[in-house]
């Protein structure tokens, strides 16, 4: 079975106009199997968002390859089957949640009626039914984040890519996100998400990958990565410290 995500020796180097270079990714190897939930961890600036943006075709890699559902990351067909929650999105403040979701549904070729039905179902699923007809500009941070999840699920994607889905959410919101992620896996979808909430990751993920300075240092089941008696947090700190001492 083809992997939902397949990344091989991926490198991304940003060049600033003044000639400086930032090596954001330095040989990332990673695979996400279908039906698995994989957490993507790493300190700020490790390159998590950059990796996700390559997978979605927003950035072309400097080196290496990224394949999505067996397709090249840039392939338009991949867009049909991938859902994405961007980091820090400010949704069009002048539209209501319902309006924007209907618009997104239309992009997937849904009829007006079908898009409206889908929007209503999604808003209910993420707990925004009451706010459906309010402007997105009036949503709280947590509501905006829930909306972001809804818009990533429009076409029941085979692969869900979430950049910090629980950031800014209260404990209830986090529980809701966890439930949504688990429902997606139950449906057979793969979920790949970055996060700084280690306890959250420990609870929901089948596997984790820890990225430090543009390279995946360890990957596997959380229980296997941690030494006996070690929490994921302690494991994370150990891996990061070792990687930073090494480079």
């Amino acid at each position: 079975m083809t992997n939902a995500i397949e990344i091989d020796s991926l490198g991304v180097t940003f060049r600033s106009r003044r000639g400086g270079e930032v090596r954001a990714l330095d040989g990332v190897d990673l695979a996400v199997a279908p039906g698995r939930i994989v957490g993507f961890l790493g300190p700020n600036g490790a390159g998590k968002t950059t990796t996700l943006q390559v997978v979605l075709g927003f950035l072309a890699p400097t080196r290496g390859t990224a394949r999505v559902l067996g397709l090249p990351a840039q392939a338009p067909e991949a867009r049909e089957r991938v859902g994405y929650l961007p980091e820090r999105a400010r949704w069009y403040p002048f539209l209501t949640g319902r309006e924007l979701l209907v618009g997104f549904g239309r992009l997937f070729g849904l009829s007006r009626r079908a898009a409206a039905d889908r929007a209503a179902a999604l808003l209910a699923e993420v707990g925004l039914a009451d706010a459906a007809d309010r402007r997105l500009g009036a949503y709280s941070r947590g509501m905006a984040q829930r909306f972001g999840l809804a818009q990533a699920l429009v076409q029941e994607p085979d692969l869900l890519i979430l950049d910090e889905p629980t950031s800014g959410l209260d404990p209830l919101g986090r529980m809701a996100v966890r439930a949504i992620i688990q429902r997606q896996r139950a449906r057979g979808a793969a979920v790949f998400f970055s996060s700084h909430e280690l306890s959250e990751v420990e609870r929901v993920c089948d596997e984790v990958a820890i990225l430090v300075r543009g390279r995946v240092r360890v990957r596997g089941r959380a229980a296997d990565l941690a030494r006996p008696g070690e929490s994921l947090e302690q494991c994370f700190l150990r891996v990061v410290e070792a990687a930073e001492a090494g480079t």
Partner: protein
Amino acid sequence: MRAMRGVAMVAGTVWVEGFRRKDAYVLWVLLAALLGVLAGVEVYGLARPARYVVDAGLLITWVFSGVLVVTLSGRQIAADETSGMVFALLSKPLGRGAYLAGKWLGAWSMALAATLLFYAVVAGMGAVRGGVSGPAVWGQAIALHAAALGIVGALTLALATRLTAGAAMTLGALLAVVGFALMPTLGARAAEAGGPAGAVLTAAHFALPHLELLDLRRRVVHAWGPSPWGPWLASLAYGIGWTALGLLLAWLGFRRRPLRQDGS
């Protein structure tokens, strides 16, 4: 089919934004300014013929419509990039080409709708004073005006794929002003200057759009009657060709460009 839907969705969003944010007020302010100036012409020139009113009104209409199309098309990409909306949009089945086409269509059609309002006001005020030209001339003038807005919008959008919103708007506006004010005499100036300066001017003469070809104001104002259809069609084709070129440049500028949220 799917691409057309994407274009319509993006263009529709430009319209909704225009109406729900302050932009619609700007339009009413501009309309009020237009009416005010035209009323002023009335007061000062009690016995003046309609052509003074129409002349002043059309000049203002050109300026306002240019400002609208430049600001609408110049800000779209940068705004979507800083808000992160561009990532949400392009992660859906919406190609970058369809995205750009939608942005252009939204900005152009919205500026055009405002322009038609201005034309209605100007033609109405002219008609009250006895009128200047028949509907055929007005129709020809409006169609070429629409083509000019298409060019300016497309070129501004092309600039906006690589520059900040402010820089794209400034250059787009500059292009529009140069296209009008300098292009008609550029050929003569080039011959006069000679040498390297002349070469630069000659290059500009051929490389920049001649917006003055799309300006039928004098024909409307002086009631010269409709333009012969051959040259008129040629002008229209020229406008459409430049618009297509602008959209092609926008696509080339945006096709492979890395997207980033900080907007730098």
